C-alpha cells in the first residue's frame, strides 16, 4: 500500500485550513488600511458580510483610527452611506473629511433602548444602499448578535459592533474579535480569527500622522527647554501648521 502523501502537499478545500496557517477568506474582504493588521487577517482585510466585534474600554476611542481607512474606501467606492447606530458622540465632519470620509453620508441613528438599537442595525443591514453599519451595542446578548451576524451574511456590508471589555468572557458568533487597548499607541489583540491564535500585540498608530507629528514636535521641544515654565498663560499663539508640517 503506497504511503499517503505528506500532509503539506495535500490540497485542502477552501473551507479547511491547517492550524498553523490563516484560513483563506470565503468572502470578500476590505483592506483595513493598516499593513500590519492586514497581514494578520484571513484574506488580508476586514471580512465583509460578517460580524466583527471590537472590544474596548472607552466606547469612542480608536474608532476612526482603526476603521477610518476602510470606511473611507467603502464609502468612496459606490457613494453609499454608512450608518452609525448609537454612536457615543457626534462625529465631527471636518475632521472626518480629512480622513477621506464624506461626513454628509454618515447616517446617525440615536436610540436609548438596546432593542431599538438592534432593530435599527438590522434594518440598516437589510437596506440595499448602505455600505457599512457601525453599532455600539454594550448590552447585546450572544443570540442577538447571532441574529445580526446572520443578517449580515445575506449581504456584503461591513458590520462592526463595539462592546465593552468585560464582554470578552461571553461567547460570540463574530468571525473576528478584536480587543483594543492603549492610549499613546493603539494596542490590538486579535482574540478570535480563522487561523492560529495571535500571541503578540499589534501596534498601530493611535493618531493621524499629522497629529502625531505635532505632538512629537511639542514633546521634543519641551524636553530641550526644561526651563520653560508650564502653561502659565496664553500670550503666544501656536502655529500648529508649521510644527506639524
Amino acid at each position, binding site marked *: 500500500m503506497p504511503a499517503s502523501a505528506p500532509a503539506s502537499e495535500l490540497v485542502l478545500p477552501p473551507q479547511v485550513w491547517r492550524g498553523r496557517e490563516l484560513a483563506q477568506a470565503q468572502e470578500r474582504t476590505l483592506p483595513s488600511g493598516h499593513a500590519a493588521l492586514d497581514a494578520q487577517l484571513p484574506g488580508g482585510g476586514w471580512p465583509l458580510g460578517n460580524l466583527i466585534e471590537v472590544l474596548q474600554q472607552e466606547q469612542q*476611542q480608536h474608532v476612526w483610527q482603526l476603521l477610518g481607512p476602510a470606511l473611507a474606501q467603502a464609502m468612496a467606492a459606490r*457613494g453609499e452611506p454608512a450608518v452609525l447606530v448609537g454612536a457615543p458622540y457626534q462625529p*465631527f465632519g471636518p475632521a472626518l*473629511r480629512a480622513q*477621506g470620509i464624506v461626513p454628509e453620508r454618515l447616517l446617525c441613528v440615536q436610540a436609548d433602548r438596546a432593542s431599538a438599537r438592534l432593530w435599527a442595525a438590522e434594518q440598516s443591514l437589510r437596506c*440595499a444602499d448602505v455600505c457599512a453599519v457601525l453599532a455600539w451595542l454594550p448590552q447585546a446578548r450572544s443570540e442577538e448578535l447571532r441574529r445580526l451576524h446572520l443578517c449580515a451574511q445575506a449581504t456584503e456590508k461591513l458590520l462592526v459592533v463595539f462592546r465593552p471589555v468585560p464582554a470578552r468572557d461571553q461567547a460570540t458568533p463574530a468571525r473576528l474579535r478584536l480587543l483594543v487597548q492603549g492610549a499613546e499607541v493603539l494596542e490590538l489583540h486579535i482574540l478570535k480569527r480563522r487561523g492560529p491564535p495571535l500571541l503578540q500585540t499589534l501596534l498601530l498608530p493611535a493618531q493621524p500622522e499629522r497629529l502625531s507629528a505635532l505632538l512629537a514636535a511639542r514633546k521634543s521641544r519641551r524636553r530641550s527647554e526644561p526651563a520653560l515654565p508650564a502653561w502659565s498663560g496664553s500670550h503666544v499663539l501656536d502655529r500648529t501648521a508649521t510644527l506639524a508640517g
Partner: protein
Amino acid sequence: MYWIALQPSPDEDRTAWGWRGLQFTPRVAFADEALLLEAGASERLFGGRKRLLRCLLKEGCELRFDAWAAGPTALVALALLRMKRMGLQAPALVPDDLPLSTLTAAAPHLATLERIGCTTFGQLRSLPRAGVGRRFGAELLAALDSAHGERPERYPWLTLPPEFDQKLELPALATSAPDLLFTGQHLLTRLQSWLQARNLGVLALELEWTLDLRRLDGKPLPPNECIELRTAQPTQEIRHLRRLASEQLARTTISAPANALRLRTLETVPWGGVTTSLLPEDNKPGEKLHQLVERLSVRLGEENVTLMQPVQDHRPECMQQAMPARGAVDAVDAAIANRRLAVTQETPATSERSAAGVRKAHRQPPLTESLLPPWILRAPLKLQVKGDQPWYQGPLQLLTRARRLEAAWWDAQAAEPVLRDYFIARSASAGLLWIFRERLAADQARARWFLHGLYA
C-alpha cells in the same frame, strides 16, 4: 370580442376590482352582481388570453373573487358565470343551450316561458319574433340578440375618480390605533388598484378615522382624527406604505373608539415606473435608502435619525448641522445614482486616475482640519478646575500650545463673541481630548475650561 365576467368577493371590493380591470382594458362595467370586461382589443398586448387572465386574476393581486367566466358576448359570459356559481356544467352549445334563468331580461317572464316549454336561449329564439315581441316586450328580444352577438352591447363604462377618497365601516369598534390597521389594509389594496389604473405614484396619504363618541368624560371630542403618511419617492408599492402606517399607528393613541376609516390621497405624481437593470450589482436585494430612513424616523423619531450638513463657520459647534435625515436623504440618493452612472461609464484608465486622485487628496488634507478631533460634543461640557488645572476623570495634561479662535463678533444673534484658546490634552483614562479655555471671561482669575471634542 372577448368578454370576461367576474364575481368579486366580498361585494365591497367591486370598485377595487373595477379599477384593477381598467389596467387591462378601458371597457369595464358593472352589470347586475358581476363585473364585465371587454378584453378583445388588449389580448395581443398581454400575450394571449391565457396570459391576460393570469395577469388579471393571479399576479400581484390581493383582491379575491368568487368565480369568473368568459364568452364571446357579455350576456353569454354572465350566463356562464351564473351557471358556474349555481354549480351547473356549461352546455356544449353556447349560447343556444344556455338556460333562460341566467338571462336578466327574462327573469320577469320565467314562469310563463317555462309553461310554454321554453327553457333555453335557442328555444326562445326559434319562436316567431313578432309574437315574442308582442307578448314579452322588446327588451327580451334585444337581450337575446345581444347574447347572440347580433346587436351591439352598451354599458355605462367605469371611469376613475380623479382623487382617491374612500371610506370603510369598521367591522367592529376599534379601541386602539393598531386595530385600525386591518381595515386600513383593505383601503390600501384599493389604493394600489387605483394608482395602477391611473398610472400615478403616491407621495402623501391621509388616514382618518371617525370617532364613535361625541364626548368623553364630559369633554367634547372632535368628530374625527387623522394621521398623515409621507414618503420621499412616489410609490405604488403598498408594502412600504403599510409598514409606515403600522409604525405610525403603533405610536398613535386614539381618544375614543372609532367606527369608520377613510383614506385619501394628498399628493400624487405621474408614475415613472421602476427602473430595472441587468447588471448584477444594481440588483441587490433589500429596500431603498429612503425607505429605511422613513421607517427609522417614524419609529425612533425624526430628530434621532440625522445626517450632517456642513456649514461655513469658524466656530466648531457651528461647522456642521444635524439635519433630520428624512428631508436630506435625497441628496445622498442622488450621490449614489451619480456614482453608479460614473462607475458604469468609467473605463479602467479613468478609474485608475480617479483612484489616484482620491489617494492624492488623501495624502494632503487641509492642515488645520486634520488636527481636529473626529468626535465632538453637541454642547461643550464645563470641566472642573482643581488648582488651575482642568480635570476630566483625572487631571489633564496639556500637550500643545493654544490655538486661538475669535469668531462670531459679527453675529448679532450670538449671545457673546466666541473667544477661545483650544488645546489638545491627555487624560489618563479617556485618551486625547480637545478642550478650550474661555478668554476674556468676566472672572479672569478663575479660567473656565470646557471639553469640546475627543480624539479616537
